[in-house]
């Protein structure tokens, strides 16, 4: 009994710490995005709140939390209220499964990868439901686009991850990292470069980021699925989007870049290499956003079905074949 309570307390404390760290990351990701894009565009970026604008995310959060929550006339209220939370919970829970370090993973379950995939598909429900419940034509179109996009990119992403699973022989994320460490190249990026490529593109599409931000394309659908949201609920959609980015990047680090291992050991900071890799992938997200134009709806689907899925399948077969031989 005592052991169980100990374990429970440990889990709760770890969960809270992890949540706070993740939330901080998410908050400062928005800041980093604004600042990096600003520098790429030769602007200054946020610099009014705090030194170099470092308190900007907190100010934004406070502002959004204290604003009036407007519920437009004619919305489907229960769904309208609950949709942002579906998004956030589904996007955020994935953090618990990521092995940050050899000895730190919140829940080390055997079907970790599958669970994350399931969650990320579920988070699309938030988008679809909000689009449906808003009773606005722009939001409706945004929701439609989101559902189509998720369906097609989910497959490519799963196929890309499947080759990793084949290589590692496990769905457990911890095992995948350990398998990578034992593999000849130390990371799966080198043998699975194609899968990595497919995975990153699908992850960008999964998170609705440029160049695949069609559900919220602001120049076409104003803000897409969350056009009718305001205040806290709006903020939660934002949080969900950035949480999704963090989880997807962490997954990429875990499955392709070898998790916590690095060329040399950094004393006292066991997460060092994990975080460096994570930040690099997050930077790529932002970098791509600053550079590329947006795809059209049907072209996006074409890319997903006609390019990424065949490539991923070929890659999967090759992996299986090599695995069989070796």
């Amino acid at each position, binding site marked *: 009994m005592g052991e169980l309570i100990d374990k429970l307390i440990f889990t709760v404390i770890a969960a809270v710490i992890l949540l706070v760290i993740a939330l901080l990351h998410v908050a400062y990701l928005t800041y980093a995005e604004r600042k990096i894009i600003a520098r790429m565009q030769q602007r200054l970026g946020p610099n009014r709140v705090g030194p170099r604008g470092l308190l900007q995310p907190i100010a934004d959060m406070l502002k959004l939390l204290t604003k009036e929550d407007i519920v437009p006339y004619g919305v489907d209220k229960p769904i309208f209220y609950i949709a942002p939370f579906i998004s956030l919970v589904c996007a955020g829970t994935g953090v618990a499964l990521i092995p940050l370090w050899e000895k730190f993973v919140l829940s080390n379950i055997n079907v970790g990868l599958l669970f994350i995939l399931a969650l990320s598909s579920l988070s699309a429900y938030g988008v679809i439901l909000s689009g449906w419940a808003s009773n606005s034509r722009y939001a409706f179109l945004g929701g439609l686009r989101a559902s189509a996009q998720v369906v097609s990119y989910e497959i490519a992403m799963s196929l890309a991850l499947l080759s990793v699973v084949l290589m590692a022989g496990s769905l457990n994320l911890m095992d995948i990292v350990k398998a990578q460490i034992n593999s000849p190249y130390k990371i799966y990026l080198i043998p699975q470069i194609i899968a990595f490529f497919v995975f990153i593109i699908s992850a960008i599409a999964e998170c609705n980021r440029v160049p695949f931000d069609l559900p919220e394309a602001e120049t076409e*659908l*104003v803000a897409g699925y969350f056009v009718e949201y305001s205040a806290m609920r709006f903020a939660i959609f934002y949080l969900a989007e950035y949480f999704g980015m963090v989880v997807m990047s962490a997954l990429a680090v875990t499955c392709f870049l070898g998790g916590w291992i690095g060329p040399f050991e950094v004393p006292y900071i066991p997460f060092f290499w994990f975080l460096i890799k994570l930040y690099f992938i997050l930077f790529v997200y932002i970098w791509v956003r600053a550079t590329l134009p*947006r*795809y*059209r709806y049907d072209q996006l689907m074409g890319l997903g079905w006609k390019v990424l899925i065949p490539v991923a399948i070929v890659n999967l077969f090759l992996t299986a074949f090599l695995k069989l031989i070796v």
Partner: protein
Amino acid sequence: MATYLEINKKQVNEEKWEEPFYLNMGPQHPSTHGVLRLFLELEGETIVNCTPIIGYLHRGVEKLGENLNYNQAIVLSDRLDYIASAANNTAFALAFEKLMGLEVPRRAKLLRTIVCEMARICNHLLWLATHALDIGAMTVFLYCFRDREWLLNIYEKICGARLTHTYVRVGGVRQDFTQEIIDELYKFTEEFPPRIYDYETLIDVNRIWLKRTKGIAVVPPEDAINLGLTGPCLRGSGIAYDVRKFRPYDAYGEVDFVVPTGKNGDTYDRYRVRMEELRQANSIIRQCLDKLPETEGEPVVAEDAPDLLMPERIKKPEPKPVPKKGVIFRGADVPVVPPGEAFAAIESPKGELSVYVVSDGSSKPWRLRVRTPSFVHISAIPYMTKNHMIADLIAIIGTLDIVLGDSDR
């Protein structure tokens, strides 16, 4: 088209699954470039029908012009296409000069040409910025604004205003360039071409940009003429019609430039034409600057140009008898401006901008008609959007390069 209310009624009555999906885009929308309203009938994301509705920015420039004198009417022209107001000023001034039979000094012509081409660069940069932003490339937007700012600063030095210049006036221009401005312009013409490569690196061969622009809104040449498209939109379809070449005005007869044309008449070709025009405009400015020293010291306003404060009426003084003290003029009215009509067209950055003015002899125009390119281009939107998607509609609005102040007048 039925009005919005009628359609709503229809929706209620009809069976649910047969109802078309109507989308009311604008007048408040991030990418309709102003207060343009588009009433769309959709099938999925494909546009079946599109009805542009304009008039939200209608200020009655034509009616106002009938109640102001010729010089004051120039001020109105600034507010038409507020991105390239120097070009509008020139169109008005040309029509009025033709009406009054004024000959503009050569230096003024060169200055006007420079200012018009600067307006073209300003306009095309703003077009590229918004067009790229519409399609999603947000960095091009800020690079373009960075360079446009430089030009606006030069404008500020030339005439004291950044957007609504009122620089060109009947019979010439407001004031001469100083040496400082000429030096700055030389510097600009040298540094500008490499910057065009920056934009092109980001979008010119980018596969997403190509996919979004190639084969979108194809207008065959015959249709382009029939629709009344002008400027880069017409040239993108392969017709090298340019007022600067066909009916040269100002100093365009003496400068050397190429009229770029496209082949397929799609959005990409129109984009290429405009990018090429940026380079041509740069070279025209350079040529005019080189010619400026030849005309050093010339006045920049015609000798017989009307005063700003045009008299309401001029009385012909009678030679005899000597007028009494206090009564200066006696006799019949002389027309301030010869009665008649004049038509002048210029190649404004957006297309052909023509002014038709009828005079009755007083200091105010009897009828001031402005044919603005945006008005005609908006009327072509239903043709161009047929069977395209919503995302393409955004690209089409961008490629037409419309300004609602220009179309609504």
